[in-house]
């Protein structure tokens, strides 16, 4: 393990990979700042840019984009009350009132320090938990994997928002349906291709990610008239300092909520959004009615809590992704797809076969979080000027990046048409409150689920004994059943749309 860690440190600290961390954090902060374009869109937009990179550099870059986007999302929440992503919605509750009364700089600084602390705490947790879980997962066999994938799918679908559980399941199934399009692994014959030669190789992951997140987000923004507005509060560099009273107020909050955020992030299906809302409500309850100013009116703890929790959760989400190959949210699902596209198999094989990638991603997170604080925080007042760019320039730019991102993968204009069709379907489904994260997850895991199920049937002579004969399988089968049935009887919930 220690050799692998050292290899990871070596890989992460090459000058090129350091550049990738900085670029990723910077690009993520920039894109995450744009209202409506969350981390999922940011990561999806970066995938085509990484084709020429080696896998470690590509994943380091995209991980940087991910936590950079979560960091950047808080800026638009605070300055213009328009969260860059769902995980920074809670930040706006107190961040925007602070900005309105002239304390935008302090709110941004608290958000940055909380993000940094949460991210660092999460990285330490990842460093400790990931190898332990990966070693356990090394003992898994095909039946365990098949059930693990089913568990991941049901967990994510079941944690869809209130009234969305059935829709979450439907989208997971729809994603798996899309995954069955193309050449069948069993017979080698084309399956569900509608006679189209373009579909013989199956649907492209980048295309699905761009269609359901990036392009659909822009079209929905136009359709629902919620494109980012211009202007908002401003912050100056000298306003970004915190005094001793501020530090005393937020330090215990950061410690508590970083732990909570990490634990929530590790759970498949939970993610940064739920973590930030849980952290906010916990702090609000702890503070009670005596809080001055009250929560919702510019309390600095109301900024620190969601920001430390969402960054810790973002890092925590890498635990199931790297060790089990099970993404916990839409963004980590996109990262999983990107890793597969780069020839890496996330899960215990990544730990065993590519320790330099496994460890370098973890090590890079320490560097990335430091970069966000040291480089990005002082640049926030300048970066925030992007919020003043008119949406009629920004949104067409995103559209162009989507189209080119898909076209440059295959140089096939037909893929761009498929992108438009799937984006239109995604917009329609999202208007009906269908969540997209389970769709993406179903698409990515569907093929692996089928392969592992097939192997499990071969191992058990066509019987269903694999569901209970191995302890790990039995535990996961029961957990899957619980995840499947329990939410149907749930009366309330929090939307997990990260």
């Amino acid at each position, binding site marked *: 393990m220690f050799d692998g860690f050292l290899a990871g440190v070596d890989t992460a600290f090459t000058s090129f990979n350091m550049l990738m961390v900085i670029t990723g954090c910077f690009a993520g902060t920039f894109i995450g700042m744009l209202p409506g374009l969350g981390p999922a869109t940011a990561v999806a937009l970066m995938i085509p840019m990484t084709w020429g990179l080696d896998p470690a550099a590509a994943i380091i870059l995209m991980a940087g984009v991910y936590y950079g986007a979560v960091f950047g999302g808080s800026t638009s929440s605070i300055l213009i009350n328009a969260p860059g992503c769902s995980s920074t919605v809670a930040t706006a509750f107190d961040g925007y009132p602070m900005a309105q009364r002239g304390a935008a700089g302090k709110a941004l600084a608290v958000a940055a320090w909380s993000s940094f602390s949460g991210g660092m705490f999460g990285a330490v947790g990842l460093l400790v938990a990931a190898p332990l879980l990966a070693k356990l997962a090394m003992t898994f066999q095909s039946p365990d994997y098949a059930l693990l994938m089913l568990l991941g799918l049901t967990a994510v679908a079941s944690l869809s928002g209130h009234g969305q559980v059935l829709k979450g399941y439907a989208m997971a199934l729809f994603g798996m349906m899309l995954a069955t399009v193309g050449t069948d692994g069993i017979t080698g014959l084309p399956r569900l291709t509608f006679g189209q030669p373009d579909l013989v190789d199956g649907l492209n992951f980048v295309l699905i990610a761009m269609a359901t997140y990036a392009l659909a987000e822009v*079209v929905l923004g136009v359709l629902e008239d919620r494109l980012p507005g211009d202007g908002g509060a401003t912050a100056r560099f000298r306003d970004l300092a915190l005094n001793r009273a501020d530090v005393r107020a937020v330090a215990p909050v950061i410690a508590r909520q970083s732990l909570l955020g990490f634990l929530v992030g590790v759970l498949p299906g939970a993610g940064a959004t739920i973590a930030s809302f849980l952290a906010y409500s916990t702090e609000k309850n702890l503070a009670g009615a005596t809080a001055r100013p009250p929560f919702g009116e510019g309390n600095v703890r109301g900024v620190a809590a969601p920001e430390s929790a969402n960054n810790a959760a973002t890092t925590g989400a890498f635990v199931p992704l790297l060790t089990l190959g099970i993404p916990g949210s839409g963004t980590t699902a996109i990262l999983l797809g990107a890793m597969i596209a780069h020839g890496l198999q996330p899960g215990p094989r990544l730990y065993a076969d590519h320790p330099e990638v496994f460890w370098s991603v973890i090590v890079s997170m320490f560097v990335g979080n430091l970069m966000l604080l040291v480089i990005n925080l002082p640049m926030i007042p300048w970066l925030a000027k992007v919020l003043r760019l008119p949406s009629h320039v920004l949104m067409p730019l995103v559209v162009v990046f989507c189209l080119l991102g898909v076209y440059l993968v295959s140089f096939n204009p037909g893929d*761009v048409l498929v992108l438009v069709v799937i984006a239109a379907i995604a917009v329609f489904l999202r208007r009906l409150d269908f969540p997209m994260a389970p769709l993406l997850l179903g698409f990515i895991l569907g093929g692996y689920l089928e392969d592992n199920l*097939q192997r499990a049937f071969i191992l058990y002579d066509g019987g269903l004994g694999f569901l209970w004969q191995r302890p790990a399988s039995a535990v996961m089968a029961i957990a899957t059943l619980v995840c499947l049935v329990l939410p149907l009887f749930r009366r309330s919930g929090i939307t997990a749309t990260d």
Partner: protein
Amino acid sequence: MRRFLPGLVVLTLAAVYGWQVMDIAILPADAREAMSARTLPLVLTAAMTVIGVLLLVTAHAQATASSPVRRGDGRKAVGLLGVCALSATLLDPLGVPVTTALTLAAGMWLLGERRILPLLAIPAFVSVVLVVLLLLLAIDLPAGSLWSKHV
């Protein structure tokens, strides 16, 4: 009617997919196996149908839990998708740089930009930056059959 729409959509998806599943070829040797090329698609169709029915049965509760529909500009949204589709058809004849500029200009116009200078300058600038960036990344851009050369 809107409350039944999600269930109907899911059932339609299940029906269309299920119809196609019947066309999946199975080799004679695979027909006796526990899992063939058709097994998972059939399970997916069945599960989707069950969920569609459940969505219809619980339509009232689902509708009250759904977030309210926000009204915006449907024509602009359709227009934007149309611009994207048009771009796809222009990529081969016009190539990436020209199509990028045209798509950007059309998108900006659609979203409300009416000044000629930004409509010309921004797409041209973005297109040039993009070409330089992609060339630096060693990605060979097809220039388009109309120009019959590579950038």
